């Protein structure tokens, strides 16, 4: 469940182990049953997968359209294109003017956005229930007839370049976050960044946009999810009305995501003039999401760094006082994924001393595994967070859309708690031994400046 929760968690870190709880009965997390969702799935004649989930708690609904395309589908010389294309989807279509999407959704009380990752691109709105037609119309019109014009492309290309500056180039550690993936992967699909390079963004042409739209933005390459306060029969009729006449397209080419075995640890050290403290990022290669081993590593990450009783927090922040913060963040992709560990030493501590201590924590897990108490605690944390994500129809729609398009497993929202509960301490131990291997490790270290680096042998 951690997968859903990364953004929800409050503080990171964690720890402890071995501490005996008070006499209180821990509320039996395992007794708590989350009411299952009723996923009503159908497929239109053009191949669009439709999943309807009635929920009458509040007079609202959320719509998510997930397309099976991400930066993994980009080719060399066009990095950043999938995301640039996502921006084009807000620039109008045959019956929606430039910028009108924002106006129509926001001015009717709703919220909206879209986002792009390595594996998929999603678009979503949440609106009051009386605006069901509006959301469906907006999504269908841009799936059918995107306005692909040079002024729109030039405008959004520059906007995306500002997005890159704001989130990467003008932020401390911005480049380290991109470099860790390019160091950890050899296969271009995941090696390059989703935001892309400035040069490649500049190279994107109108023909690229047209080709991409035709190839990937077809109803048979998408999933439509609606969650909220509506009548399913009525909603399905509307979906057919708006979407069924959009023509299907040949299946897009498959992308080879496979990664050759690595031999030897990979390291990179960079100077970042915007950083004030050093930082280390490690990445171990782990299996794809929605697999038993990925679940095991997700649970392990919770044990290592979720909450103030977690191992990293208690050992590295509190006992050894080496870290300002440390966290473990496994990701999940449809192909090879990464288990990131991110550490910032507290002022005056050498980053290599922190890294050594992190390595000792990992070695301890590889040697001795984790305890049943730790696993019980991790389950309780994940379960509570998962339940909270279910309050929002938008989050629910987004989760179902992602699970459908990535794993062909929309019911994962109903089975996730059980899949995670099934993880055992033995599985975690076996997975740790298998994946925490130095040959599979990539490390990016950031130092604030050459001057500070020179001092790293001493004061820093």
């Amino acid at each position, binding site marked *: 469940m951690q997968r859903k929760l990364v953004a929800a968690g409050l503080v990171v870190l964690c720890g402890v182990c071995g501490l005996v709880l008070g006499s209180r009965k821990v509320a039996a997390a395992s007794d708590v049953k989350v009411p299952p969702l009723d996923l009503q799935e159908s497929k239109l004649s053009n191949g669009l997968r439709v999943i309807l989930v009635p929920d009458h708690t509040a007079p609202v609904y959320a719509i998510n359209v997930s397309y099976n395309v991400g930066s993994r589908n980009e080719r060399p010389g066009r990095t950043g294109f999938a995301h640039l294309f996502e921006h084009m989807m807000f620039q109008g279509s045959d019956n929606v003017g430039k910028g009108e999407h924002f106006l129509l959704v926001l001015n009717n009380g709703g919220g909206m956005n879209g986002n792009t990752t390595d594996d998929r691109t999603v678009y979503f709105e949440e609106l009051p229930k009386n605006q069901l037609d509006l959301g469906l119309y907006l999504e269908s019109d841009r799936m059918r007839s995107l306005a692909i014009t040079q002024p729109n492309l030039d405008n959004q290309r520059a906007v995306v370049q500002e997005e890159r500056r704001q989130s990467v180039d003008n932020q401390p550690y911005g480049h380290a976050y991109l470099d860790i993936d390019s160091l950890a992967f050899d296969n271009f699909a995941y090696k390059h960044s989703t935001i892309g390079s400035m040069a490649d963004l500049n190279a994107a042409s109108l023909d690229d946009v047209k080709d991409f739209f035709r190839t990937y933005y077809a109803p048979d390459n998408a999933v439509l999810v609606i969650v909220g306060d509506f009548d399913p029969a009525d909603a399905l009729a509307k979906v057919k009305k708006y979407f069924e006449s959009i023509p299907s397209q040949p299946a897009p080419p498959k992308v080879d995501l496979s990664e050759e075995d690595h031999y030897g640890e990979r390291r990179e050290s960079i100077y970042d003039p915007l950083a004030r403290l050093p930082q280390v990022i490690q990445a171990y290669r782990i299996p794809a999401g929605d697999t038993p081993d990925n679940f095991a590593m997700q649970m392990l990450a919770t044990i290592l760094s979720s909450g103030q009783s977690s191992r990293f927090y208690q050992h590295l922040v509190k006992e050894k006082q080496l870290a300002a913060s440390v966290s473990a963040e496994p990701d999940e992709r449809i192909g090879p994924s990464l288990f990131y560990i991110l550490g910032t030493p507290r002022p005056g501590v050498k980053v290599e001393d922190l890294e050594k201590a992190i390595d000792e924590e990992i070695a301890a897990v590889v040697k001795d595994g984790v305890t049943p108490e730790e696993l019980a605690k991790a389950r309780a944390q994940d379960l509570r967070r998962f339940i909270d994500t279910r309050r*929002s129809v938008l989050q629910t729609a987004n989760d179902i859309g992602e699970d459908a398009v990535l794993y062909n497993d929309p019911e994962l929202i109903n089975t996730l708690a059980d899949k995670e509960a099934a993880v055992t301490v033995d599985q975690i131990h076996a997975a740790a031994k298998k994946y925490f291997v130095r040959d599979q490790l990539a490390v990016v270290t950031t130092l604030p400046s050459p001057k500070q680096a020179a001092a790293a042998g001493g004061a820093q």
Partner: protein
Amino acid sequence: MIGTAKIVKALRHGLVLSAAGALFMSTGGALFAQDNNKSSDVSKVVRLNRAPVSKEVLRVKLPRPTIVKLPNGMTLLLLEDHKLPTISFSMMIRPGQLADPDGLPGLASMTAGMLREGTEKRSSVQLATEVDSLGATLGASSAFGAGFTSVSATGLSGDADHLLDLMSDIVLHPTFPGTELAQFKQREEANLEQRRANPNFLGTEALRKALFVEPPLAVVSATKDSIEKVTADDLKKFHDQHYRAGNTLFGVSGDFRSDDMKALVTKYFGAWSGASEPALEMPKSGTGGPSRITLVDRPDSVQTVILAGTRTVKRTDPDYFPLVVMNQVLGGGPQARLFLDLREEHSYTYGAYSNVTANLYPGDWIGSASVRTPVTDGSMDRFVYEYKRIANEPVPESELDDARRSIIASFALSLESPSQVLGGWMNVQYFGLPADYWDTYPDHISAVDPTAVEAVAKKYVDLSHIEWVAVGDRKQIEDVLKKYGPVSVVDSNGNAEK
């Protein structure tokens, strides 16, 4: 969704890249009505008006909590919601950071941050383990610019008793152990270093200082000096003096029965004492002088973070509603003027917005954008243009209609989150607003007409008094900034530069 995520989320794929930064929920909207737009160089936004829109605005009534005044003076607000088996507790304890003494900025914040580091019954690690074993959250903070310390907990509803036990333990019986304090200070120092690397923090710091001049309102964080100086005794004193039942609003939302909950809260907090303190007087100092620019020198920046703002009013001021509507028109989201102008028209930025706050004392109204360095002046010209336009030209009726409708219609979405609804009712208590405040809120918004918007725009969005902040590379932007007013320069530690 950048904006909601933490650093780690950024790691997950090199960033989840969003079309518009954060999830944009409307709290109001505006558009350039094409036909009313005299300045043809402004918007390329096109309204085709072909999408099916229901004309009906779904008006909803927010559920009201049960409100109980306990004998010890604490006000309890209870909002049941049985959709899911979780529960959420939220305390607001006045006066928070407003009571920071001279010379110790951040004392309230550090006191709150130390609550979990040890109590008469539990050590820091025991607290951590109990909380995590329940899968719960428990935290305390005292935000700068807010007039209260916030203590909150969430967990499974079956754990309500245990959660209240933990919560009351840290609020009523913290011991501020010296060894924990020494470690805490190191973490605070590291946090401060990390924040000083962030251009938005530096910008907010400079702007609050320009607008409010004196502490506590001008301050946005502890300082290296105050972190070093603070003692366990300081924390104890602050706690003894200000953590009082009478200063406290206590909210509970989620899956519980109100009668049971009242008894349970009374069991853990009933013996807490302390009458409420009178509201603190805030210094009236502020500029009101001619427009100025603070340049925060952040070498190697590739963007300039621009902020341009002013002081506003207390939450109870009649100008508040027109300010909210005016803000929605000008910068309240991707449908508003600043975004459409600076981003969709001029491609200067990933996003331009404005935000208005009002508190027990005057809040602020701030427009902002991060723009690439070479278009720093071009972007400031657009701010100037839009600020002048809203102050000097009446907002077209259709644009105003959109803004008002977006605010009112978005109420339906808030029904999803009982803790958010309860937070709204806690604010009513906190600010001393009328008991039917949220019932009549839509009417107040509907009543804001073009004249009212123009009046507040003239009064607050006044270019002759606006305070500007630019965070960026001094050597590249100092000269262009001088076109807009007198420039003073500070470094990224907040110290004046020559």
